[in-house]
């Protein structure tokens, strides 16, 4: 069985751990330069749209109806890592899917024991880290997503939903799930399926997956197989979601060579940036992680991760690589033998939403144009002549790296000068 652990309103929840006055209040987290709202608490959702420009909200802020804070990625990255390490106490295999979602594998549980285990995990993450989560467990990733959604939306579940293969409960949930809410099924696809008379996840699960493959795509075929309860989606599938992009790979052998790791991070960063451009998105932040081999308890273990915020939303490989290199610099420690390295791009937005990018970016129009041309040429060359034909070099060591963080809350857990002061 596969579990999806999703942190509730993650950025806002991180802020609330250290500022309990924000509990139960309408809270929004702003992008850097305080451009627009990128994360919301449940309370603020009826008042403020996702992506709303912050300057339009000044009246609500002044009258005390809402609270806005700047994004504090250093805090979010640290809290995400804490959530992950609590999960790792409960299951040997945890895969971060994004900064606030993790897949966990559960083997060898009876259904009753699994429910108990999932409930305990739900409780412990909240207690240990202060972050509330929902837990959905099911035979496949696609179903685990649906279980998680049920855990979040249906009060009776209390944040934990375990769906067993062939159960009436699973059937009921599938019948009540509209096509849009299935992982990887978007607007246009839904319309084409509606023409075939399909309305719900249950309808789609009844289809012959081979027919679906012929009519649509391998991607949708996989979704159908997963809805039928057989795992078909691998974490590194290029097809998964548009909200975040991850590239990671294990090294051929354990390595402690910084140069080797840096090279891997640069490749992953470049690959991620290409994916980003191919789907016309911009990223706001870059997360870099390293892993030692957990199955070698004889070796010292260290699996750090860090989030670095980009100066403005971008799809420029240079800026993404610069951020990733900086991130590696922060977390790399010698003498650990690393098994895996990865780069994740976070908080993606649509590149074509002009209004947003204008508000957000201190990059001039001319600069954007130039960077756009350069990146297009880079992608074109690599496509024609083979991946890696044109690569970017390393940014000069010691190059000034600065982040804009106008109204950021303190980095409570990662800077001595900023730890909470209490009496």
């Amino acid at each position, binding site marked *: 069985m596969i579990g999806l652990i999703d942190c509730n309103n993650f950025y806002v*929840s991180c802020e609330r751990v250290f500022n309990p006055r924000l509990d139960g209040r309408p809270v929004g987290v702003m992008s850097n330069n305080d451009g627009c709202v990128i994360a919301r608490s449940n309370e603020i959702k009826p008042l403020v749209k996702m992506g709303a420009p912050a300057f339009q909200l000044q009246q609500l802020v002044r009258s005390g109806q809402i609270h806005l804070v700047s994004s504090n990625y250093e805090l979010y990255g640290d809290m995400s890592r804490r959530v992950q390490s609590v999960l790792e106490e409960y299951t040997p295999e945890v895969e971060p899917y994004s900064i606030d979602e993790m897949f966990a594998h559960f083997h060898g549980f009876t259904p009753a024991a699994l429910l108990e285990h999932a409930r305990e995990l739900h409780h412990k993450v909240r207690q240990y880290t202060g972050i509330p989560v929902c837990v959905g467990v099911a035979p496949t990733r696609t179903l685990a997503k649906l279980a998680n959604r049920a855990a979040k939306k249906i009060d009776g579940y209390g944040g934990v939903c375990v769906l067993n293969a062939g159960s009436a409960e699973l059937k009921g949930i599938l019948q009540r799930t509209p096509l849009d809410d299935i992982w990887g099924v978007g607007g246009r696809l839904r319309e084409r399926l509606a023409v075939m008379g399909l309305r719900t996840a249950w309808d789609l699960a009844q289809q012959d997956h081979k027919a679906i493959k012929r009519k649509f795509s391998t991607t949708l075929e996989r979704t159908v197989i997963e809805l039928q309860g057989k795992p078909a989606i691998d974490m590194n599938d290029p097809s998964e979601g548009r909200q975040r992009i991850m590239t990671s790979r294990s090294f051929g052998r354990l390595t402690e060579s910084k140069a080797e790791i840096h090279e891997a991070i640069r490749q992953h960063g470049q690959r991620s940036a290409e994916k980003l451009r191919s789907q016309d998105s911009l990223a706001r932040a870059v997360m870099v992680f390293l892993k030692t081999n957990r199955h070698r308890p004889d070796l010292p*273990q260290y699996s750090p991760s860090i989030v670095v915020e980009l100066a403005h939303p971008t799809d420029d490989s240079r800026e993404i690589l610069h951020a990733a290199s900086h991130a590696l610099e922060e977390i790399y420690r010698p003498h650990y033998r690393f098994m895996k390295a990865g780069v994740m791009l976070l908080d993606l937005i649509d590149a074509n939403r002009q209004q947003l990018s204008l508000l957000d970016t201190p990059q001039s129009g001319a600069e954007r144009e130039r960077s756009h041309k350069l990146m297009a040429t880079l992608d074109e060359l690599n496509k024609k002549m083979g991946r890696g034909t044109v690569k970017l070099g390393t940014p000069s060591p010691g190059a000034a790296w600065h982040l804009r963080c106008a109204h950021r809350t303190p980095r409570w857990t990662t800077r001595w000068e900023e730890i*909470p*002061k209490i009496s």
Partner: protein
Amino acid sequence: MQPNTPYRAHPAPPLLALPYPLALGRAGLSGFPSPAQDYEGRTLDLNEHLIKRPASTFFMGVTGDSMEAFGIHDGDTLVVDRSLDPRPGHILVALVEGEITIKRYQQIGNRPYLCSGNPRYQPVALTDLDCQVWGVVRSVIHEFQV
């Protein structure tokens, strides 16, 4: 945090969980990458000594003199562990009326209270709705002027 589901101090606390396995308890696993580990076998790691569970351990700084009766002074650093279930006698970090404060957990006539080190402040009943435990203070780091 949802205000209506606080996790409370346990009036009759269960026994503490088994000690954290050493392999995971290493300071480097999460949160506190320790340069000291590079010299493993040659020196002692204070992280390993003070931090039993990195994922649930947070540092906080102390201001004011209200906890001097408990040996906690202005400018000290607290090592706070959220994974522990509070028991009478523990020093706690608690949320009282939306404020994060340091208190001592005490039983007075069979009921749980949060007490300040300063007699000016009345004990607060832990059963009050706007009162929650944030974490348990495991140690206090006090640096002398040198």
